[in-house]
């Protein structure tokens, strides 16, 4: 402990990034971190623990006196209830479809934007714009302005070519929700993949060109392997956001027509049906699903992160 105070003068003049020695100093280093850390634990971890506890109780807030411990009862009810099971399936379907479609479209757009052409900056701006519309506003735009069977833009354009006039939301409800989400999330994927494309080793590509490699060969053997982790990152971050999607489902179909996903079901079961225990169990299931995705996401982020740190 006293070693620090009697340290020779020579070492005291280079104090930065020295491992903190002594209890006081190490707390001084930690201090700036503590407010943020305590805040996060209090606001995010404690409520989840409460959810976990409530999920073991049979508790409808309309009958507060009838609250009782049911163990895993809520979970078996969530997993055996046909509607709830369907919402688990809907969540998976919605997430996978939106992530895959926006990833493929985002890749194509990123490849287009990676080339030089007139007005590239403007096109980039046009493509980012859908991501910057407030999600509820975007959902309203699709619901009323594009999908409306009588005077929506989609049927209006179909009218010109003499096409059919479908009622988009009632005939393909889940697809309708997915299309609006793909429109919003493609720019996100594009931005991540574009950053990936621009971090390629251009000397290597030039060398491959000199050696007579075709564009497809360069894409297949150089670009795609380099992009792999950016594709993974986009897919995982996209999944984390879309698994939680509430706005589009709530706005476009109000959870009807078989589009209710888990977040919507959780919202509905306690906000409208006042089933606190069931809602909590469903919430815990969403968390378990997210943790599975997140484990992979964290691994990808950490490998990219280590690469950045070692490059710096």
């Amino acid at each position, binding site marked *: 402990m006293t070693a620090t105070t009697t340290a020779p003068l020579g070492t005291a003049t280079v104090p930065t990034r020295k491992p903190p020695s002594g209890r006081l100093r190490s707390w001084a280093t930690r201090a700036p*971190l503590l407010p*943020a850390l305590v*805040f996060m634990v209090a606001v995010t971890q*404690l409520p989840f623990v*409460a959810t976990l506890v*409530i999920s073991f109780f049979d508790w409808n807030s309309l009958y507060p006196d009838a609250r009782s411990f049911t163990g895993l009862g809520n979970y078996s009810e969530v997993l055996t209830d046909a509607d709830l099971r369907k919402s688990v399936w809907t969540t998976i379907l919605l997430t996978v479809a939106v992530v895959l479609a926006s990833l493929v479209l985002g890749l194509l757009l990123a490849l287009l934007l990676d080339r030089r052409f007139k007005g590239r900056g403007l096109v980039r701006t046009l493509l980012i714009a859908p991501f910057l519309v407030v999600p509820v*506003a975007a959902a309203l735009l699709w619901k009323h302005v594009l999908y409306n069977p009588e*005077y929506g833009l989609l049927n209006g354009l179909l009218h010109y070519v003499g096409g059919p006039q479908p009622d988009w939301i009632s005939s393909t409800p889940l697809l309708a929700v997915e299309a609006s989400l793909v429109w919003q999330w493609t720019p996100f994927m594009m931005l991540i993949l574009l950053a990936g494309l621009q971090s390629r080793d251009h000397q290597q590509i030039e060398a491959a060109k000199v050696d007579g490699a075709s564009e497809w060969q360069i894409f297949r053997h150089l670009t795609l392997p380099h992009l792999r982790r950016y594709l993974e990152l986009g897919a995982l971050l996209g999944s984390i956001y879309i698994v939680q999607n509430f706005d589009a489902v709530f706005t476009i179909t109000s959870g009807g027509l078989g589009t209710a996903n888990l977040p919507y079901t959780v919202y509905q079961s306690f906000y409208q049906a006042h089933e606190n225990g069931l809602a909590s169990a469903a919430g815990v299931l969403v968390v378990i699903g997210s943790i599975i995705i997140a484990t992979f996401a964290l691994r990808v982020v950490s490998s990219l992160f280590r690469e950045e740190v070692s490059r710096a």
Partner: protein
Amino acid sequence: MSGTALPVRPRRAKGAGLGLVAWLAGIVFFLPIAWMALTSFHSEEDAATNPPSFSAALTLDGYREFFGTGGGASPWPALANSTVASLASTLLVLLLALPAAYALSIRPVRKWTDVLFFFLSTKMLPVVAGLLPIYLFAKNTGTLDNIWLLVVLYTSMNLPIAVWMMQSFLSEVPVAVIEAAQIDGAKLPTILARVVAPIALPGIAATALICFIFSWNELLFARVLTGVVAETAPVFLTGFITSQGLFLAKVCAASLVISLPVLAAGFAAQDKLVQGLSLGAVK
């Protein structure tokens, strides 16, 4: 580089073709927004035609309707609430995240990567995981329909993103420069103001803009925890979910006005947007 002139011509033609495809894709993606903007300036009758009327007379009626001069609820309280919630939570995020990022980059604590990944893992916890206890807490403490509850929640929603982004921005400050300043006898506040701030400021600004966007957009918490008094702009928009006769121009005007702050903030932060959205993993 400019040695061989042989393959230039066909490649340029192909490049122009793909440039055209890119333009086309940009226009297709932007079309719904352009159409929304055009419709917002049409009369309700012209907004609801099939085939669509592209060249109808322009009017501000949709905006007048939206701002409540034609009866109906005024959006101003909701816009004010959203502004308070977004600005206050962004400010709080910066106050908490800046020191934390400092302790994770410039003068790192032991095991700083573990701490960084703890912050990230909280972002992966879905909102519904804590929604019910937060609702019950708010109900029992009388903070339901109180905008400051949203401020706290939005802060927790954005803090991990901000810590990650700022950590990566502060890491760009060269250690050698800080050491040199210390040897010259500069104290910590001077170093922060003169050395760290100039390098990190653009990044801090982008972080703030991204936090603002996420707070402004949020619906689930606001929908569950606010009602009449603290209603935010997205909650106001949910009033348009069910059709109300001819109201397309009004919906478009409302959606556009409420999206404008996000569009502005997003384009201002365009260069750093990826870094923020990927939590600093992509530069």
